[in-house]
């Protein structure tokens, strides 16, 4: 199976990766003959970033569920794996999805570059390159050279590009390079208006394309001509005004312009990238809390992050012939943007373009319906309904086991939080009425009714589940739960709500 290595850089990287995980969990798949295994590599110096921690936890649960349920169960059917699982080298990594940036924690940038050991001319050069002010963890104004990097690069890509250049010499990069095959692809997620992402994207891209010059790694040829896609997220959210913070909304556009100007020569201008997706939103909505990183940087999920995750699906649908590369240069570089049908402040499925709606409406609705059943009705059904009593049984012991009680419940709870956050955000994405009856679950969709058609409620779902499960064999109770609900929710949403794949 070919692999897609995803470099998720900075806070936006983690959040887009989270959205991708949700889409893959719901069964969204690329329309492609090839199946891809996803290998996420999160790069963020800000280890206490709550978005990063949430994404890591989510990926861990996804992995466990997917391993238990198998890859042909509909939900969770795209394999996600950690880099360490691919390697048999003695320098095995920890099994985390996070890239371990060395010597960042608790150190100032000046210590990282050995400022005190520099001679006077180099000190002067460093002073010029890294002039300006920022803040530290205690919200005190400091010189840029004195920034403590364990809260990230605080919107300073000039620092980020120095620190992230260590990636090319890391064990992670060696493992990535030695496992990279001709059919594999790379995707880089970054934002352009901050510090980590803006610096990380061109740095990672350059290190991959310059692999031939890296003596520490294997698999150079494949890597140099790798099929590389990227989404660069332009400003898409509003932020509270805080004169003490180094993060200012007014800087977003200036930083974006500066980065785009840099990309013009070093990313797009030299055809380094095969497929680049731009996404932005100038809607001035609910401002995010102005947190440079010292309070954990936990931002609500946003529609733009989900749309960015769809760029990854689109990239996987792009045929190999459109992603040809020679000597590190894309032969037919592709640039794409994302749009919606209607400029709505609260996006519903019908506000999306047809392709996007077809891609996600059915699958997200299936996972929403699955979660609704499990949280509101499963306890009434287990050991009573036929589908539950069929072998392998879904019984009380099963729901007390770790798979259900921890992995699945926690994942679905995060899924609900993700939807609620997107719904509460402005611009919002609110296609579901999560607390309503099943019939009113999807905004703008009414249940097909008639003289001889039954209502859609939990007992009717039990009927469908029992009918769907009749005579079927499943390898385990976990696989049965996932596969049976995937098939049944698809049938209900097709026949009753008129949703299409």
């Amino acid at each position, binding site marked *: 199976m070919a692999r897609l290595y995803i470099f998720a850089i900075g806070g936006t990287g983690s959040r887009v990766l989270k959205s991708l995980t949700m889409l893959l969990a719901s069964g969204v798949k690329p329309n492609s003959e090839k199946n891809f295994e996803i290998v996420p590599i999160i790069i963020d110096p800000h280890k206490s970033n709550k978005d990063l921690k949430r994404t890591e936890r989510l990926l861990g649960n996804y992995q466990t569920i997917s391993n238990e349920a198998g890859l042909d169960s509909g939900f969770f059917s795209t394999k996600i794996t950690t880099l360490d699982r691919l390697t048999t080298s003695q320098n095995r990594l920890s099994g985390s999805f996070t890239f371990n940036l060395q010597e960042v924690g608790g150190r100032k940038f000046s210590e990282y570059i050995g400022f005190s050991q520099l001679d006077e001319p180099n000190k002067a050069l460093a002073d010029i390159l890294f002039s300006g002010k920022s803040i530290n963890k205690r919200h005190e104004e400091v010189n840029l050279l004195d920034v403590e990097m364990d809260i990230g690069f605080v919107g300073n890509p000039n620092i980020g590009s120095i620190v992230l250049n260590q990636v090319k010499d890391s064990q992670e990069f060696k493992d990535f390079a030695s496992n990279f095959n001709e059919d594999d692809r790379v995707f880089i997620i970054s934002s352009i208006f901050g510090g980590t992402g803006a610096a990380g994207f061109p740095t990672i891209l350059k290190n991959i394309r310059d692999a031939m010059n890296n003596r520490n790694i294997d698999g150079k040829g494949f890597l140099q001509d790798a099929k590389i896609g990227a989404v660069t997220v332009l400003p898409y959210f509003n932020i509270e005004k805080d004169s003490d913070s180094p993060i200012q909304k007014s800087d977003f556009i200036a930083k974006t312009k500066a980065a785009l100007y840099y990309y013009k020569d070093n990313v797009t201008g030299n055809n380094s990238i095969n497929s680049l997706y731009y996404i932005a939103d100038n809607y001035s909505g609910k401002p995010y809390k102005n947190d440079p990183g010292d309070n954990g940087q936990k931002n609500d999920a946003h529609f733009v992050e989900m749309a960015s995750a769809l760029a990854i699906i689109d990239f996987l649908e792009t045929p190999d012939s459109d992603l040809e590369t020679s000597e590190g240069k894309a032969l037919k570089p592709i640039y794409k943007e994302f749009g919606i049908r209607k400029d709505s402040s609260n996006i519903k499925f019908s506000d999306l373009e047809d392709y996007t709606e077809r891609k996600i409406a059915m699958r997200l609705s299936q996972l929403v319906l699955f979660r609704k059943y499990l949280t509101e009705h499963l306890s009434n059904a287990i050991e009573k*309904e*036929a589908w539950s009593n069929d072998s392998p049984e879904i019984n009380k012991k099963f729901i007390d086991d770790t798979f259900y009680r921890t992995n699945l419940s926690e994942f679905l709870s995060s899924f609900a939080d993700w939807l609620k956050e997107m719904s509460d955000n402005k611009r919002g994405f609110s296609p579901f009425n999560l607390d309503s009856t099943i019939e009113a679950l999807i905004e703008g969709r009414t249940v097909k009714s008639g003289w001889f058609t039954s209502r859609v409620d939990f*007992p009717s779902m039990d*009927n469908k589940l*029992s009918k769907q499960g*009749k005579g079927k064999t499943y390898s385990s109770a976990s696989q049965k739960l996932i596969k049976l609900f995937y098939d049944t929710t698809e049938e209900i949403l097709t026949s009753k709500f008129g949703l299409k794949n």
Partner: protein
Amino acid sequence: MEEFFASLYEWFGLNPLFSTDMGDQLRGWDITCTDYIGTPWYVIIGWSMIAVTAVLYALQYHIIDSSRWKNKTHWWLFALIIVILNFLIAFLIPYNSIQAGDYCNQLNLSVSDCIGFGLSNAVWSFILFIIITTIPVFRKLSNNCRHTTFWKP
């Protein structure tokens, strides 16, 4: 077939459920008191008992076949309906014959014989319902009631 049903209904013994005379009447002892050439009630009531039980089984397991009608209480409700219907059939047919004087006058038949035969029919229908709903080959075709049995409803 007549002997089969006769042995079935007389399994419990003619006494205390019903008398030998009632047994003769149900075997078809004719009104002229000459031979067993009258209506073979054992066979007719036996088949009707099977038919009623099968129809009600099919109604719960394959026609209604709903998650709302698959519980222990629903199994017992259908069992009760089957028992009552079969009791009434087996009670009313000989009772009407007695009321109409439509039997050999040498036989000594009473209402208690009719009740006894009704009970016998009801018990066999209950047993039959247990058997039908126990054998997996039938109930496994049901969407919602395939695990609903007398033993583990």
